[in-house]
């Protein structure tokens, strides 16, 4: 543990947007824009160290203290329930967690509903709250084909524009929860590097206010 503030960013398009927000907040790190395969970037002057990790891993880095701050989708936070502080809704990477099915799907409440999803816990919680018996089919990708092949009745997945669903003749039948990128903090890091984290938070909050 050192004085530097460690920040885990999600690799990909969202991560670049997020970095731009950190930069605008006054915590830039110019070396990050060099086109190379490095994963860790430092700006000792500002006291920040950024690193790119797989988006679904950000919460793990933060929960276990390898990163003090991180940016993760609400979907990941709901699914894994990491022990972290959720400090800000960054209002970017917006989409929703939804239930989708074939356009001609009609629910039969007398039958156990077969649900295919990557987000087992979110799906379970949703249907438990409705008192509905379900059979969870955990898939790691291409969830959309499950109902088409009769593997499941419905799917629970992230829907951004709905194009993929439409192309596969599926439609949203229920929205579970809206999703966006959140700023999360490690509990110990938040306390021992509080001043700097507050400064980052204020810088980012000013931008989310504008974008509202």
């Amino acid at each position, binding site marked *: *543990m050192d004085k530097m503030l460690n920040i885990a960013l999600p690799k990909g398009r969202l991560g670049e947007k997020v970095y731009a927000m950190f930069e605008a907040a006054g915590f830039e790190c110019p070396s990050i824009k060099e086109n190379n395969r490095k994963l860790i970037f430092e700006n000792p002057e500002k006291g920040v160290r950024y690193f790119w990790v797989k988006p679904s891993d950000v919460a793990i880095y933060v*929960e276990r203290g390898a990163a003090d701050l991180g940016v993760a989708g609400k979907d990941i936070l709901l699914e894994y329930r990491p*022990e972290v*502080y959720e400090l800000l*809704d960054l209002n970017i990477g917006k989409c929703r967690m939804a239930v989708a099915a074939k356009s001609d799907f009609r629910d039969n409440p007398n039958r156990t509903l077969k649900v295919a999803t990557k987000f087992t816990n979110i799906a379970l919680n949703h249907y438990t709250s409705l008192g509905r018996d379900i059979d969870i089919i955990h898939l790691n990708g291409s969830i959309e084909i499950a109902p088409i092949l009769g593997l499941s009745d419905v799917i629970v997945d992230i829907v951004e524009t709905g194009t993929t669903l439409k192309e596969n003749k599926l439609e949203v039948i229920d929205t579970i929860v809206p999703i966006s990128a959140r700023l999360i903090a*490690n*509990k110990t890091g938040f306390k*021992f590097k*509080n001043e700097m984290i507050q400064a980052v938070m204020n810088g980012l909050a000013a931008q989310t206010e504008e974008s509202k």
Partner: protein
Amino acid sequence: MNLYQNVLRSDEKAAFGLRELYRSYGYLPFKMSKFEEYDLYVRNKDFLVSDNVITFTDTNGRLMALKPDVTLSIIKNGKDLPGTVEKVYYNENVYRISKGTRAYKEIMQAGLECIGEVDDYQILEVLTLAAKSLEQISDESLLDLSHLGIVSEVLENAGLSDEGKKEILNLLGEKNLHGAMEICKNEGVCEASARAIKTLITTYGTPEEVFPALKEIGISEEPIAQLEALVGAMKSNGIDSVRIDFSVINDMRYYNGIVFRGFVKGIPTGILSGGQYDKMMKKLSRKSHAIGFAVYLDLLERLEDTKEYDVDTVLLYDETDTPEEIAAAVKALSAQGSVTAHRNKPNLKYKKLVTVKEAKNLG
């Protein structure tokens, strides 16, 4: 004690140090049996950190459990003696599921309980011991303090539904302001109450920073004054690692009043947790008040440095050296640190390698 500095692991060092600390404040050791009737835990499942308990059937057919928690046993086995306080400490292993591996783990826990006529002095003493426990473990530690009386009054004033209250409480634990404000909006909470909730979520820091904001939220003065007096008394006793943080939310069904959590630099989660648990006492038909805390010593291994060397000196001997000569060489070298004697070079990291003949010349 210092004799064993090189031998003890950081959790063992802490365990001995804490025992000495608690003993010096007149706390008595509490020794309990390894097992407890399972029934005790079933009835108080939510009080436990994890509700999985290792059970087995005793020879007389009773269902027993390897204890997942110490506090319940102490409450159960104590007696109410009006007008007195019972002060005990413990250093016990408990058995819980570890979050990462989903397998049972043995966890060493130290802690203390103060049960009986708990007044403000007793609370102060327990808080002081909590802060001192953290100081023993690390040079950089913080004790986060909250008052559930303040939290519950703010939630009560907001006129939230039961479901809403529960959610806001969880969001408070996550410092999730945007989530809490959304619930306030949905439930039509008035602006003043929403502001009070916002204050609870966003204020964190030294008492001097937090109290001015806290006095603005329009709740009864009593709990704030109690908190302020406690923090003031700690400070004048040389403890300034206290921070006010309302995200410390122990289960309100068991806890009331002062609750706290301790953090040390280098360990990503809290390593000390405690509070007043009068409601738990009532559930177990005890009339007394109580406050206590536990330190999770298993987390301390993360502070352990990796050792550069396994041993200071490796002593090599061959067939020409007699056992007597080797023993003499070991004795001479051991004055400078650890020494291990081998015929062939061992697979160890060492500072220096000497033969018996070289050692003899050195001596």
